[in-house]
C-alpha cells in the first residue's frame, strides 16, 4: 500500500478517526499498533511475520538483559538480540548476494561451486526496524536507555506505519516518550501536516516519477555517451532526493496528524560544502545511527589501541567501515559497496587534507568552489548507485566517447530542460521560504499551483519509493 494510493488515504482516514476517538494512551497505542501490522501485512501477510517475531524476541531479550547485572550475561543477551536482528537482515537481504559472491570467489581459483539461492521476498521495512531495535538494545546494554516495559508501546516504536517502510529511523529517545503520553487533538498538528503532505505528494508524483523516465532511458542504454550519462545522472541526483524526501515529508505529515513528531531526514544535502556536511544533511537519522553505533565505537576502540602509534588508522578505518556498511545497507550489490567506499574515501581525503572538523571556506568564491566540487562528487557517486553493475559503470565513464553523434547534444538538452522544469519548483520554494516566509498569500498560491500539478500528473498507479526497496 503506497502512501500515494487512494487505498492508503482511505486506510489512514479510518485509522485517524478511530485513533482520535480513543480516550487513553493505551487505546491510542493499541490502535496504532494494529494499524501498523495491518499496513505491513497488506501486500503480503508474510511481511508482518518477521516484524512481529523479532519484536517479541527483542522485548523478551531486553527485559532479560536489564534484569541481570553481570556484564558477561548482559553481553550474551545483547549478542543474541543483535544477532537475531542482523541474522534476519542477512537472511532476507544479503544471503543471495553473499552466496553469489562466494561462488565468484571460488571460480577465481577454478573451483566450481553452485550458488544456493533463497527465494524470499524482502519483508517491507526490515532494514529500518532492525536498526531501530538494535539501537534500543545497544543503549539498554550501555545503560543509556530506559527499559520500555509496556509491550504495545515497544512494538509500536518498531512498527509505527508512517515510518515503517522507508524510515526515518526514529531514535527511541525521541519517540518512546511521545508514546508514553495521551495525545490530544490540536489544530497545530494539522497546520504542521498539510504543507508537508502536499510537498510529499508533489515531490513523488510530479518530480520523482517523471524524472525517473529520463533516468531510466539513460541507464538502460548499453553504452551511453558521457554527455548523456552526465545528463541522466544529474536527473537521478534530483530523482533520488525527491523520492526519499517525499517519503520523509509524507511520513512526517501523517505522523503529525496522529499527534506524533517524526524527525527530519535531510536538510538541503546538495548545498553541502564538505563530505561530512553532506552526511549530516543526507538521510540524517541513518547517518546518526551509523555515527553512534558504528563510527564512534570503532573510532574509540582504535584510539585506545593506537594511542601512541599508528594514529592514522583511527582516521582511516572508522569512516571506511562506516561507509562500506552504509553502502551495503542501501543494497546487496557491488555498486552499492563501491558507492559506500567512495564516500568513505572522500571523508578520509577531506580529513587528511586538514579540512576536518569545523573548516569553512571564507570567501564567496571559495564557498562556491567548495560547493561545486562537492556537488560534482555527489553527482558522480550517484552514477555508481544507479548503475546496474560495475562493468557497465566503468565502461560508461571510461570507455565510451563524449558523444556518439551530434544528435545526442539535443537529446541531453531536452532531458536536462525537463529535469530543470520539475526541479524549478524546489528552487521557488527555497526562495519563498528564505526571503518571503511570512507572505501568506504567496505560500498559499505556491501550494495551490503544486496541487494543480499533482492533479495533472496523477497516474492510476505510481512506482514505489526508491527507499522502500531497502
Amino acid at each position, binding site marked *: 500500500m503506497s502512501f500515494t494510493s487512494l487505498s492508503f488515504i482511505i486506510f489512514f482516514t479510518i485509522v485517524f478517526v478511530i485513533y482520535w476517538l480513543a480516550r487513553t494512551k493505551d487505546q491510542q497505542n493499541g490502535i496504532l499498533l494494529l494499524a501498523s501490522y495491518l499496513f505491513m501485512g497488506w501486500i503480503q501477510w508474510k511481511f508482518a511475520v518477521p516484524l512481529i517475531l523479532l519484536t517479541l524476541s527483542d522485548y523478551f531479550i531486553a527485559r532479560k538483559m536489564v534484569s541481570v547485572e553481570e556484564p558477561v550475561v548482559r553481553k550474551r543477551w545483547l549478542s543474541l538480540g543483535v544477532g537475531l536482528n542482523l541474522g534476519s537482515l542477512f537472511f532476507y537481504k544479503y544471503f543471495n548476494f553473499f552466496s553469489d559472491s562466494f561462488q565468484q570467489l571460488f571460480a577465481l581459483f577454478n573451483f566450481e561451486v553452485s550458488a544456493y539461492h533463497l527465494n524470499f521476498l524482502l519483508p517491507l521495512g526490515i532494514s529500518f526496524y532492525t536498526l531501530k531495535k538494535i539501537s534500543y538494545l545497544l543503549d539498554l546494554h550501555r545503560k543509556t536507555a530506559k527499559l520500555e516495559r509496556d509491550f504495545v508501546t515497544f512494538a509500536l516504536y518498531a512498527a509505527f506505519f508512517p515510518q515503517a517502510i522507508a524510515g526515518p529511523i526514529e531514535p527511541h529517545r525521541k519517540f518512546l516518550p511521545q508514546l508514553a503520553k495521551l495525545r490530544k487533538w490540536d489544530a497545530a498538528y494539522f497546520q504542521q501536516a498539510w504543507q508537508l503532505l502536499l510537498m510529499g505528494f508533489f515531490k513523488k508524483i510530479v518530480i520523482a516519477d517523471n524524472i525517473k523516465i529520463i533516468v531510466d532511458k539513460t541507464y538502460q542504454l548499453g553504452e551511453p555517451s558521457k554527455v548523456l550519462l552526465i545528463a541522466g545522472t544529474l536527473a537521478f541526483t534530483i530523482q533520488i532526493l525527491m523520492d526519499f524526501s517525499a517519503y520523509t515529508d509524507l511520513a512526517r505529515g501523517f505522523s503529525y496528524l496522529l499527534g506524533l513528531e517524526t524527525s527530519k531526514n535531510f536538510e538541503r544535502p546538495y548545498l553541502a560544502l564538505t563530505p561530512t556536511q553532506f552526511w549530516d544533511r543526507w538521510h540524517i537519522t541513518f547517518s546518526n545511527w551509523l555515527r553512534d553505533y558504528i563510527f564512534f565505537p570503532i573510532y574509540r576502540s582504535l584510539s585506545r589501541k593506537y594511542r601512541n602509534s599508528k594514529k592514522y588508522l583511527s582516521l582511516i578505518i572508522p569512516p571506511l567501515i562506516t561507509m562500506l556498511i552504509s553502502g551495503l545497507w542501501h543494497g546487496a550489490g557491488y555498486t552499492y559497496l563501491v558507492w559506500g567506499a567512495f564516500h568513505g574515501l572522500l571523508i578520509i581525503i577531506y580529513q587528511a587534507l586538514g579540512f576536518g572538523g569545523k573548516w569553512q571556506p571564507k570567501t564567496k568564491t571559495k564557498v562556491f568552489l567548495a560547493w561545486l566540487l562537492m556537488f560534482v562528487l555527489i553527482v558522480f557517486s550517484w552514477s555508481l548507485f544507479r548503475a546496474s553493475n560495475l562493468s557497465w559503470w566503468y565502461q560508461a565513464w571510461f570507455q565510451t566517447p563524449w558523444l556518439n553523434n551530434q544528435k545526442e547534444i539535443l*537529446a541531453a*538538452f531536452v532531458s536536462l530542460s525537463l529535469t530543470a522544469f520539475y526541479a524549478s519548483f524546489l528552487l521557488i520554494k527555497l526562495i519563498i521560504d528564505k526571503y518571503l516566509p511570512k507572505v501568506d498569500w504567496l505560500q498559499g498560491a505556491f*501550494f495551490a499551483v503544486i496541487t494543480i500539478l499533482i492533479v*495533472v500528473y496523477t497516474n492510476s498507479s505510481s512506482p514505489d519509493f526508491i527507499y522502500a526497496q531497502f
Partner: protein
Amino acid sequence: MHNSKAPTMRSLKYYLFFTLLLLILSSLIIPPYYGVPYLKSPGPLFDDSIDMTYQQHIVENVPSMVLLGDSTLEESIDESYLTELLGQETFRIGQPGSASAIWYLVLKNNIATSSVKPKHLVIFSRASMLTTPEYRTTGKYEETIVNIALPEDTLVIERAYLSQMNWLEKKLDRSLPLYGYRAWVRKSIENLFKYRIPKQIWGVRPKDVEDSLKAAFDNPEIVQLSDMITMAETYTHAPERLDFNAQLPKSFLPEIVRICQDNDIQLTLVYTQTIYEDQDLKTAELLAAYRSNLFQYAAENNIQVLDYLGDERVAESFFNDPVHMNGEGKHGFTEIFATDFAKFLP
C-alpha cells in the same frame, strides 16, 4: 510541536482560495483550448481517425498468416526466414509494449476489416497476458491504443480502463477537466520543453528533436531492462491474474475468438518459453492450473495451441534476458516454430 516556522491558518485559507480559483479557471479554459467536451465519459477519448498501417501491409502483401505479439515476438521470430521455411507469406506484428488490448484492436480494426484476410492468426503470449485486459494500457501505451481504437470500442474502455478505476477516479475523470484531460495538459507542458524551447534556442523543428531522442534513447540494451521486465512479469504472474476462469469473462479473449470465427481466421495461441525464475512454488502451481484451463478453453473453441513453456528445445542459451531471445535463439526458435506450425498446414 509548536514552532515559529509552523504554517499559519491564513496561508491555508489562501491555499484553499487559490486552489478553488485555479480549478474553476482550468475547467473554463481546458475544454475550449483542446476542443473537447466539458463532461467526458471516463477513460480515454477515441476518435474516428485510426492507424491502418497493418491493414495496408496485409492488402499489399497478402500474407496467409499474421503473427501478433509484443517485443518478444520481434526478438524470437525471423519473419523472412519463417516465410522461407513455411513457403507461405507471413506478417509479424511484434509491437513492443503491446498486450491483449492492442492485439484485440489490431485484429478488430485492422485485420478483420481488411478486404484480404489472412488464413491464420497466431498470438504469442506468456503468463496471464491474454486474460489481463488492463495490462499495458495506461501511460505511454494509451497513445498506441488511441491510435488504433474507434469511438465504438467501448469494450476496451470498460475492460481495460473502467475496471481499474475507483468511483472517485470515475467522477473526477468525468467532471473535472484538469483531471480528465490531464494527459493532454501533460503533453502540452512536455512539448514546451521538448519542442518550443529548443526551437527558440537552436531553431530546430519538432521532427529534429524526435529524431535526436530516437537516436539517443531508442536502442536500450535489453540486459539493462532486466529489472523492469521482472517487475512486469511479476504483474502477470500475480495470483489473482492467474485465475483463468475469473479473468476470462473480463478479458478480450472471448471477443478475439469470436472475431476470428466470424472472419474464418484460424486462431493459434503460442504460449512462449521464458527463463523468468522469480516465482515461488504457489505461483508455479497457479501458473500450471492457468495453462491447463487456457488449453482446455482453446480445445473447446477450436483454437490451435503450441506450448513452449518448459520445452527443452527452446534452450536457456536462446535468451538475452528472462523473456527476449538473442540472435541464436531467434534463428533456432523460428525453425522450431516452423516445424511445429507446419503440422497445422494442409
